[in-house]
């Protein structure tokens, strides 16, 4: 008995070492098939078809319905793309929704103040006000995290509250209503070849971020920070500078989403963005991005965002309460993360193998 045991033990290293180098191609194919993003995309398509079948006269499958979908997805995608930068670096930002809100408030005030000097000028300066507000919140987040050594969960929880408070004080709790309506047609709900301009911008940002992670030094270093902070330090990376830059970028993206929100509705929405930040994190995580850093799936960010938006819009179209969306997204979140954890470790890293 004991001799049999020792034989097994002695043989194990040989067996495992010969089995540890599987041929590269099948491994990649397996990884492809088990990528969360792909599964979520499949679910997305099935949901669109399902809502199309359930909606009256297939109204969910019309161009105008898709335009609404695109508009709804634009803001959500920008936030989700942004949070993927930070999640990749092993940090988190809960303040994105509040950043969006405060940006739209400041940007809105700037636009109203400048409305006399022409809509275009007002819009452009308003855009920079939004981006600047968002980046400033990001800068505060970054400084608190790196210099005051407060974890990003706490730091951004604090700035979320602070930004929300400032937004409400600055507006005395009343949404801005004097935004020139022409901004809506010129930007917020403008169509380019039948597709809403904000959706174009969001997709472009998604693509740029995908390239950033896949091909640039900055993206690689962010992932290194999230994967093993100590190793990144000892490789001579300027950890604080990278983190501050990432927080500011993400903040600016929230600012962009704020500008889109402002120009789409020609008003602010003080009560409406509490959950945006968490929804962005949810979308990214559903798509296979790790909360613990080092692993980002941009395909999953897109698929996860679409899932949430399709559910939200589809349920309304078929006459159900939009609150069912919250339930459905919650269930999918648990299912997706569970799927993730049961999979082989290589599955999510397809993007990194280039």
């Amino acid at each position, binding site marked *: 008995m004991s001799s049999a045991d020792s034989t097994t033990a002695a043989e194990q*290293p040989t067996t495992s070492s010969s089995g540890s180098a599987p041929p590269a191609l099948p491994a990649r194919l397996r990884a492809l098939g088990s990528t969360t993003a792909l599964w979520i995309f499949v679910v997305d398509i099935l949901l669109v078809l399902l809502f199309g079948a359930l909606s009256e006269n297939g109204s969910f499958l019309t161009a105008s319905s898709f335009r609404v979908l695109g508009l709804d997805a634009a803001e959500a995608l920008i936030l989700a793309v942004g949070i993927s930068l930070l999640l990749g670096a092993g940090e988190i930002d809960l303040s994105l929704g509040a950043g969006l809100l405060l940006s739209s408030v400041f940007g809105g005030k700037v636009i109203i103040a400048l409305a006399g000097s022409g809509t275009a000028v007002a819009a452009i300066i308003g855009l920079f006000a939004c981006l600047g507000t968002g980046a400033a919140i990001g800068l505060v987040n970054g400084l608190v995290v790196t210099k005051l050594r407060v974890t990003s969960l706490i730091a951004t929880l604090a700035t979320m509250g602070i930004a929300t408070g400032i937004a409400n004080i600055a507006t005395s709790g009343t949404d801005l209503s004097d935004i020139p309506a022409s901004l809506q047609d010129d930007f917020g709900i403008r169509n380019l070849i039948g597709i809403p301009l904000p959706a174009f911008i969001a997709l472009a940002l998604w693509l740029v971020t995908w390239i950033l992670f896949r091909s640039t030094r900055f993206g*690689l270093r962010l992932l*290194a920070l999230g994967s093993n902070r*100590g190793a990144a330090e000892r*490789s*001579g990376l300027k950890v604080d500078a990278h983190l501050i830059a990432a927080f500011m970028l993400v903040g600016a993206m929230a600012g962009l989403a704020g500008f889109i929100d402002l120009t789409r509705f020609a008003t602010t929405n003080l009560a409406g963005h509490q959950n945006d930040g968490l929804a962005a994190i949810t979308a990214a995580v559903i798509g296979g991005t790790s909360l613990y850093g080092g692993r980002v799936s941009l395909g999953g960010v897109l698929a996860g965002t679409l899932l949430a938006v399709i559910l939200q819009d589809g349920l309304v179209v078929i006459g159900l309460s939009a609150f069912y969306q919250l339930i459905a997204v919650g269930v999918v979140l648990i299912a997706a993360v569970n799927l993730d954890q049961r999979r082989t*470790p*290589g599955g999510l890293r397809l993007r*990194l193998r280039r």
Partner: protein
Amino acid sequence: MSQPSDDTPDGPPDEHVLVRSAPGEPVISAHGIGKSYGHVRALHDVSLELRRGEVVALFGDNGAGKSTLTKCMCGVVTPDEGHLETPAGPIELHSIRDAEALGITTVHQDLALAPDLSVLENMFLGREVLATDWRRLLGVVSRREMADRADAALSELRINLPSVRIPVSDLSGGQKQAVAVARAAMWSNAGILMDEPTAALGTTQSDIVCELIRSTADRGLAVMVISHDIPRILDVADQVVVLRHGTVAMARPSSEISRRDVVDAMVGYHEHVGGHR
């Protein structure tokens, strides 16, 4: 950088020590190094020299000061007493970057690899090669260039990996260790300090790392290895230094000593002769 004058063309392992007794050019030396942490005297009056082509094995019990000495020599810790010298004269190291500027790299005990990044990304982390065209301005990296150079560095040390593009988390413990050693070797043109490179490795994998240590020295680098695996490291070492309570208890060529001598020096056997044996 010239290769070592190949004095041992494929000699059997046992002959290493005998043939390689002619020392190479010194890379860095420690002179009377002392370091205290509060009341704990981690190092006192420690001197040693690392030379090209030579493996120095650093043995000692837990807490003997091995890691502290390594940290002093790679710029992580500044010694309280004594100084470091290179052939160009005395030098002060204030960070790991200072040591790397001298061509001295370190294999950390925890390997310091990012598991989610690929082998090549890890080997070039902090020193990424950018594309040569306009994309350089956007900070786009050239993976092909890095892969070629990583492949070359790995094969020079006879390390076999399925690909340099797979994530480090997919590697076995020995392969990870090999990657960490290869990375240190790639960016070193003078010396490598290794803190327990065979810790937590199986027999086969330890042998592979020991081979790596030897072939790294044979490329003309100075190597310092910390280990608790005395017999195995003794096999590949040229010089042996034993630390005990922060001081040098023994410093001799490995050809002149046995495993027993090392253990005796580690535990201070000569202080209570007649104990065991």
